[in-house]
């Protein structure tokens, strides 16, 4: 089996969608233990893609392509998991770029990577009002709220999300994480946020650790 897992991982790292999909179908048709297939094969592959990106071997196109292939394979596998009543979702994340800020790319990458790692992600898009972010988090029973801001002018909205949660006595119900080029540790502390991430892989690591995964 380990060899099969390695093949899957290699297909993801090589960004070979055809092979990756073929392996996913094979796992389904042969009734293989799908959770294990995902964790030891596909997730191992996407972790490697993330590492290569952090090391400067891969760039945005490879990172996005890898995550998309992973997502397509998960879309094939997950219905079969639910069929055998196995739960894959590691948690729910509501993610958005704050009101006034139309930079969506970083937030989209974080959302894609979190999905690839098995989180249920609700991506609300860019230019999203504070109230709507909080509303959606309540509606979707989110574990984590991710707020992105790329502009020093819109960063204050990140703090508003936490202030609104405090006003509604909901601050303890959600973990709030921040992202975006200008976000620093000092800003995260000033906002009373639960953490910030420098990049998409870091964001996955942060969410894992906040939810003890």
């Amino acid at each position, binding site marked *: 089996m380990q060899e099969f897992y390695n093949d899957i991982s290699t297909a993801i790292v090589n960004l070979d969608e055809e092979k990756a999909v073929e392996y996913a179908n094979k796992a389904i048709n042969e009734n293989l233990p799908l959770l294990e297939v995902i964790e030891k094969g596909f997730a191992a592959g996407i972790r490697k893609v993330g590492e290569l990106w952090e090391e400067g071997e891969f*760039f*945005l196109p490879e990172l*996005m392509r890898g995550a998309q292939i992973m997502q397509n394979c998960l879309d094939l596998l997950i219905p079969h998991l639910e069929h055998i009543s196995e739960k894959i979702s590691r948690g729910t994340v509501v993610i958005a770029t704050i009101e006034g800020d139309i930079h969506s790319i970083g937030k989209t990458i974080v959302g894609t990577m979190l999905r690839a790692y098995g989180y249920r992600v609700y991506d609300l898009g860019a230019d999203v009002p504070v109230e709507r972010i909080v509303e959606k988090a309540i509606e979707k029973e989110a574990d984590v709220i991710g707020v992105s801001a790329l502009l020093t*002018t819109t960063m204050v909205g990140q703090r508003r999300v936490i202030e609104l949660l405090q006003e509604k006595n909901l601050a303890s119900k959600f973990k709030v994480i921040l992202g975006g080029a200008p976000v620093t540790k000092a800003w995260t502390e*000033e906002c009373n946020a639960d953490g910030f991430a420098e990049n998409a892989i870091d964001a996955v690591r942060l969410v894992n650790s906040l939810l003890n995964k």
Partner: protein
Amino acid sequence: MLFQDWLKDEAKIILFDGAMGTELIKRGLKPGKVPDLLNIEQPEIISEIHKSYYDAGSEMCQTNTFGSTPMNLKRHNLEDRVEEIIENALKNIKKVRPSGCLIVGDIGPTGEFRPPVGKANSEQWYSSFSTQTKLLEKGVDLWHIETISDLEEMLAAIKAVRDISKKPLIASLTYKKTKRGFFTIMGDSLEKCIETLNNEKVDVIGANCTLGSKDMLELLKNARNLTDKPISVKPNAGQPIIKGDKTYYEQPIENFVNDAREMIEFGAKIVGGCCGTSPKTIMEISKIINGI
């Protein structure tokens, strides 16, 4: 043409301007406001910032049109106002431009990426940059395509400018530093970018934004060996920090200026600043240039 004379004069170091965005924030630009729209809504502020750079010693300043492409404005539902925005941008800078100084047509990224990151393609980029270039052409002395993070998008912008204008062109990509050297986020190495730009009809090859002055100095040292064309550098002033509702930049101005001095020593032809730099930064660099 003044700019070409400056390029030919080996001893000449050209002083560019510094940041527009962070200067607008200092003056109370509200979250979500498109800086380009202020050309219409608060023209006096835009003119004041241009003037502050010219006064500080900038020999050329950029129009406030970084985001004035239909593709970028569309995300704010402002694409119908591109003409009005650019008309006003030209008026705002022309009003305060001292004689002997130049106006640079600023062309920033469209904000749309090609697959697999986004859905844009070269034809869309080209068409968007063409619209911007046509509207700016009558009022600018030269061009600066800047903060581009995809070599393909840069090539679309260069083609758009060159199909319309014969004026000098500075082409600046934005790079991040990796363990293997400098790359755009789309994966084009500094070497590949410069080799490609060497064969394009650009007068100056540049780098701006993302990197602070220290990393930009290192990039310049690498770039110097890759091209015979003049090089332009506009680094950031470190990283922004928000305290209360105000934004500050941490890097002491002396550090930035010392790095700028080294950049000049290592052959930068054009020096200016990007995010976080101010007229004060430019004034300090001006003292260095005057002392050489």
